[in-house]
C-alpha cells in the first residue's frame, strides 16, 4: 500500500552537498552556512486521493510556470476514487530537467496514512512542512521542520470545506517560504477555478492566510528559493492526452468508438469535449461518438467506420489492445484504415493501472495472430501528440491499415509545458480512393487487392458508391477479393502486405538525432523518455567525461536514419521503460549482424517515470561491462 516515493529503489542517492551533521543546541543550529538554492529542487506533496489536493498542486505548478521557472509536475495517483494516498512531485530545474529528481528537498506532509513512511524516507536536511492538525508526530530531529495548523486555518475560513482548502494553505506557506509572486499565485487560482468567483475568493484567501501564517509564525531556516525567469511567450500547460484529442480533431476524426480505461480515457473525453466546439455544421454534428460496451466493440466500430470510408479512432491502454487483437488482424488483412491510440500503463494483466511503462510496444508492432506488422507513431512531447494526432489518420488511409499511436501515462496524464501547436501543413491524405467511374476507368486492371502501382498499396472503392463492390473478408482472398485458399495467392498477398508496411518506413516521422562529433556512444530512446534524456546525457557526461549522441525513434517500422545512426556510432545503447527491451528486440530481429554487435540494452521499469540518474548509471554500467 505504501509507495516509497522519496527513496526510489535502484537509485544510488548522492549526498546532499548542503547537508551538515546536526549540532548541539537544537534543530535551528544544524545549518551553519547560507547559500541560496534557486530553482533547482524537488517538492513532494503527500496527500490523499479525492481531497482536492490536485487543484492545489496544479495552482502551485501554474504559479511557478507563470513566473517563467522551468517546472514539471508528476501526479502519482492510485487506482481509487477517494481516500488512497497520492503524491505530487514538483520539480524546479533551471536546466530544464523534467524527470522526477533523485530526492525530495521539500516534503509537504498532509496524509496521516503515509506519514511515517514518508517521513522516514527523507534524507537529513529535507524541509518538511507538516499539518499539525493531522494528529501525527514529527519525530525527525534532522530535518527542517515547519509546523503549520493547516486544517485549523482552513476551518476558520470555511468549516465545511476545510479539508479541501487546507491544501491551498500549504501552497500559501510555500509561496511565502520560497518567495513566490502573490499576484501570479492569485492569477493561477483564478485560472484553476475558471470563472467561479466564490471558489476563487475562498482559495485566494486560504493562500493568503497560509502566507501570512508563514511570515508571522515561522522563521526561514532553509536555502530554497524561487526566482522569476524570462517567460517564454505563449507557453501553456497541457496533458499529452488532450493534445492527442485536439490533434485527432484537426485530423478530421469522424467516428470515435471507445471504452473507458485509465490512462487513456482523457484522450476520448478530450475529443468529446472539444468536438462540439470545433466540428459542427449548421448546428449538427460532423462526427459520431459511441461509448462502446467493451474494447472489442470499440475496435469493431472504428473498423466499420473505416470500411465505410470514414476516419475512425479509439484510444485505450494495454488491456484494451489485448482484447482488440482479433479485430486488428481483420483490419490488417482486409486492409481497412483505423486508428488506435495506446496510452501505456504498467502490465502485464491489470498491472499497475495508474503507473507508467513502455511495455506495449512489441505487442502493437505485431498485433494479432499470424504474420502481421503495423505502423506505430511514438510521440515524445505534447507538441508531437498533437502533430501525430492528425498524422496517424493520413498514414492509416494512405496505407489502408490499422495505425497505432503509442504514448504512456506519464506523457498522457501529466501536465507538460507546451509552446503551441502547428496547424497541419498538408491537406488530408485520403489515400487511393476510387470515387468516380472515371477514376475507375483510368486504373488498368483494377482489383481491390491488386498492386497496380507496385508500392503494395491497392486502390479501394467505398460502400454505396456502386463501384466494384466486394465482400470484404478476413479469410484468404485473391486480388479481386474473392475467397481463395490457393498457396500462390496467399503467398503473394502476404508478401505484398509485408512490402506495403515496409514501404512506410521513410514516410513516417524521422528520428530526432543529436550527434556528438566523436560518434562514439549513441543512445536510442523513444516516447516519454524524451523528458529525461537531457538529464541522462548530463549525468553520463559527469560520470564518464564522454558526450553521447542521441536518436529518438518516432515511429515503427524503423526509419532508415535509425540504422544509419547505429552504423555511424561505435556503441549504441537502446534505453527504454520496460523489462524485456522491446525496441532492442525489434532491432535484433530486423538489423544485420554487424549492427547488432554494436547494440546494448538498458531496459528498466518499476512503474515510475524514468529518473535521469537511474538510467545514466545503467548506461555507464552497460558501457563498462562491454568495456567501452
Amino acid at each position, binding site marked *: 500500500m505504501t509507495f516509497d516515493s522519496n527513496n526510489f529503489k535502484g537509485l544510488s542517492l548522492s549526498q546532499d552537498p548542503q547537508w551538515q551533521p546536526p549540532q548541539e543546541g537544537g534543530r535551528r543550529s544544524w545549518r551553519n552556512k547560507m547559500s541560496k538554492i534557486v530553482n533547482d529542487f524537488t517538492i513532494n506533496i503527500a496527500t490523499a486521493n479525492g481531497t482536492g489536493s490536485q487543484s492545489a498542486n496544479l495552482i502551485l505548478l501554474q504559479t511557478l510556470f507563470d513566473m517563467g521557472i522551468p517546472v514539471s509536475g508528476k501526479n502519482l495517483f492510485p487506482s481509487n476514487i477517494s481516500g488512497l494516498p497520492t503524491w505530487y512531485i514538483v520539480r524546479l530545474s533551471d536546466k530544464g530537467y523534467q524527470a522526477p529528481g533523485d530526492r525530495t528537498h521539500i516534503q509537504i506532509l498532509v496524509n496521516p496514512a503515509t506519514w511515517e513512511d514518508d517521513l522516514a524516507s527523507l534524507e537529513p536536511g529535507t524541509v518538511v512542512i507538516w499539518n499539525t492538525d493531522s494528529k501525527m508526530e514529527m519525530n525527525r530531529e534532522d530535518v527542517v521542520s515547519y509546523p503549520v495548523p493547516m486544517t485549523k486555518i482552513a476551518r476558520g475560513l470555511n468549516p465545511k470545506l476545510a479539508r479541501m482548502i487546507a491544501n491551498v494553505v500549504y501552497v500559501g506557506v510555500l509561496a511565502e517560504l520560497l518567495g513566490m509572486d502573490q499576484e501570479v499565485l492569485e492569477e493561477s487560482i483564478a485560472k484553476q477555478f475558471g470563472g467561479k468567483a466564490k471558489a476563487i475568493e475562498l482559495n485566494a484567501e486560504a493562500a493568503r492566510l497560509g502566507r501570512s501564517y508563514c511570515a508571522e509564525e515561522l522563521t526561514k531556516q532553509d536555502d530554497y528559493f524561487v526566482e522569476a525567469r524570462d517567460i517564454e511567450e505563449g507557453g501553456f500547460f497541457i496533458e499529452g492526452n488532450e493534445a492527442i484529442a485536439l490533434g485527432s480533431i484537426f485530423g478530421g476524426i469522424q467516428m470515435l468508438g471507445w471504452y473507458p480505461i485509465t490512462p487513456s480515457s482523457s484522450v476520448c473525453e478530450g475529443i468529446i469535449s472539444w468536438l462540439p466546439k470545433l466540428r459542427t455544421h449548421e448546428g449538427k454534428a460532423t462526427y459520431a461518438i459511441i461509448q462502446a460496451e467493451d474494447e472489442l466493440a470499440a475496435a469493431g466500430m472504428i473498423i466499420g467506420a473505416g*470500411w465505410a470510408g470514414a476516419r475512425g479512432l479509439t484510444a485505450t491502454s494495454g488491456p484494451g489492445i489485448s482484447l482488440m487483437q482479433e479485430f486488428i488482424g481483420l483490419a490488417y488483412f482486409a486492409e481497412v484504415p483505423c486508428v488506435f491510440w495506446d496510452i501505456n500503463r504498467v502490465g502485464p494483466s491489470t498491472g499497475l493501472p495508474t503507473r507508467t511503462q513502455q511495455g506495449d510496444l512489441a505487442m502493437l508492432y505485431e498485433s494479432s495472430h499470424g504474420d502481421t506488422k503495423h505502423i506505430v507513431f511514438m510521440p515524445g512531447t505534447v507538441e508531437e501528440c498533437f502533430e501525430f494526432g492528425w498524422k496517424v489518420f493520413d498514414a492509416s488511409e494512405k496505407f489502408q491499415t490499422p495505425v497505432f499511436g503509442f504514448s504512456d501515462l506519464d506523457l498522457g496524464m501529466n501536465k507538460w509545458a507546451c509552446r503551441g501547436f502547428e496547424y497541419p501543413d498538408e491537406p488530408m491524405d485520403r489515400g487511393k480512393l476510387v470515387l468516380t467511374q472515371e477514376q475507375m476507368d483510368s486504373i488498368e486492371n483494377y482489383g481491390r487487392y491488386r498492386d497496380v502501382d507496385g508500392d503494395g498499396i491497392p486502390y479501394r472503392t467505398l460502400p454505396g458508391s456502386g463501384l466494384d463492390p466486394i465482400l470484404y473478408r478476413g479469410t484468404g482472398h485473391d486480388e479481386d477479393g474473392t475467397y481463395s485458399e490457393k498457396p500462390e495467392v496467399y503467398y503473394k498477398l502476404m508478401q505484398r502486405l509485408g512490402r506495403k508496411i515496409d514501404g512506410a518506413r521513410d514516410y513516417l516521422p524521422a528520428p530526432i538525432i543529436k550527434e556528438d562529433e566523436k560518434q562514439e556512444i549513441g543512445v536510442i530512446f523513444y516516447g516519454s523518455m524524451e523528458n529525461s534524456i537531457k538529464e541522462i546525457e548530463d549525468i553520463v557526461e559527469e560520470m564518464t567525461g564522454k558526450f553521447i549522441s542521441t536518436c529518438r525513434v518516432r515511429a515503427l517500422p524503423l526509419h532508415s536514419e535509425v540504422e544509419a545512426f547505429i552504423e555511424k556510432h561505435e556503441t549504441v545503447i537502446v534505453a527504454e521503460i520496460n523489462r524485456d527491451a522491446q525496441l532492442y528486440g525489434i532491432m535484433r530481429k530486423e538489423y544485420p549482424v554487424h549492427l547488432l554487435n554494436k547494440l546494448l540494452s538498458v531496459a528498466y521499469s518499476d512503474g515510475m517515470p524514468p529518473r535521469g540518474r537511474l538510467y545514466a548509471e545503467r548506461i555507464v554500467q552497460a558501457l563498462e561491462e562491454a568495456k567501452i
Partner: protein
Amino acid sequence: MRERRAKVVKLNVINEPKDSYTGGKSSLCPGCGHDQISNVIVSAAWDNGILPHKIAKMSGIGCSSKTPAYYLGQSHGFNTVHGRMPSVTTGANVVNKDLTYLGVSGDGDSASIGIGQLIHAIRRNVDMVYIVENNGVYGLTKGQYSATADVGSKKKKGPINETQPIDLCAMAINLGCSFVARSFSGSKKQLTALLKAAMSHKGFALIDVISPCVTFNNNDESLRSYGYVKDNQAELHSVGFIPHFSPLEQVEVPAGSYRDVALHDGSTMRLETISEDHDISDAVQALSALHKADADKKHVTGILYFDGEKPSLDVDLDLHDTPLVEMGEDLLRPSAEKLEEVIASMRG
C-alpha cells in the same frame, strides 16, 4: 445477359432486373435452410426497389455468415469476425446512414460469442436488419449444439440437449428492440413479407429465422428439423406487405379482421388475424405468446413486437443530414483560426 432475356425479364420499381440482386453460387449443403433465406433476401430487396449498391451486407463467422457471397453481388459487404458483426455495422451505420444495412448471423454467432454485441446493438437501436439463421447447431465445426438448441431436442449425433436455450426474440423484446419477428426458412411468403417490412423500418429489426441444418440437425428427434417445424409452427397472424410505391387504397381489403402498421418509409405491414388477435405494440402479449409456444413445444412465428417511434442511433447522435463519409476537408478539419482560439483559451 439482360439483352438476351429482354422479353421475359421483369423489372422492379426502379427498373432493375432480379439478376441485379443475385450473388455467387452457394457452397452450403444442398437443402440448407440458409440458401432459402438468401433467396428471400434477393426477392425482398428486389421487390422493395432498393438500389443494390445502397445495401451493405454484413456478417460474422459461421455457415450463415458465409451467405453474403450468395446474394446481392452488386452490394459491398463485410464478412467480419465471429459474433462481432454488430459493432462493425454500428460504426459503418453512423458514418453512412444512407445505406440499408442487412446483417446475417447464426445462432452460434449471435447467441454465444456475439450475444453482448447483439444486445448492445439492440439497445442503441442501430438502424439495421439483423437476421439470425437459427438451426441450433454449429455447422462449420461439424455439429456441436449451440445456445439456442431446445431442451429435449436431439441432433443427429450425440445426447439429447438438456441445457436451457436462449430465446433471442424474448431477449430482444425485453431489451426494447423496435422490431422483433420469428419466421421459418420454409415459410417463404411470411419471411419475405417480414424482411421487406424490416428493411422499411428505421431502427433495429431482428428476424430470428428457424433454418434447419440438413446435415447435423434435421432428424426426427430434433425440434428444429424441417418436418418438426412445419408441423409445429404457430403463426401469430398472416403477414402482408404493401410497399410505399403501391397506393394503399388500391390494395384489396381482407375479408377478416386485420391491422395495418405504418412503416418509416411509407410502406405498410398488413397483419391479418388467424385465430386470436395479436397486439404487436404489447411486449407482455409478445412474451406471453413465446412462453406459451415454448410450453407447447411449438414455434411461434410472425411479428412479435414493434415500436416505430423509438429513435434510431443515427438520430440520437444528432448527425448532419449529409452522411459523414461524404464530407470533405472543409467540414472535417477546423480552420487555423480555430486552432489559434483553442491555444488562446489554453493560455488563459
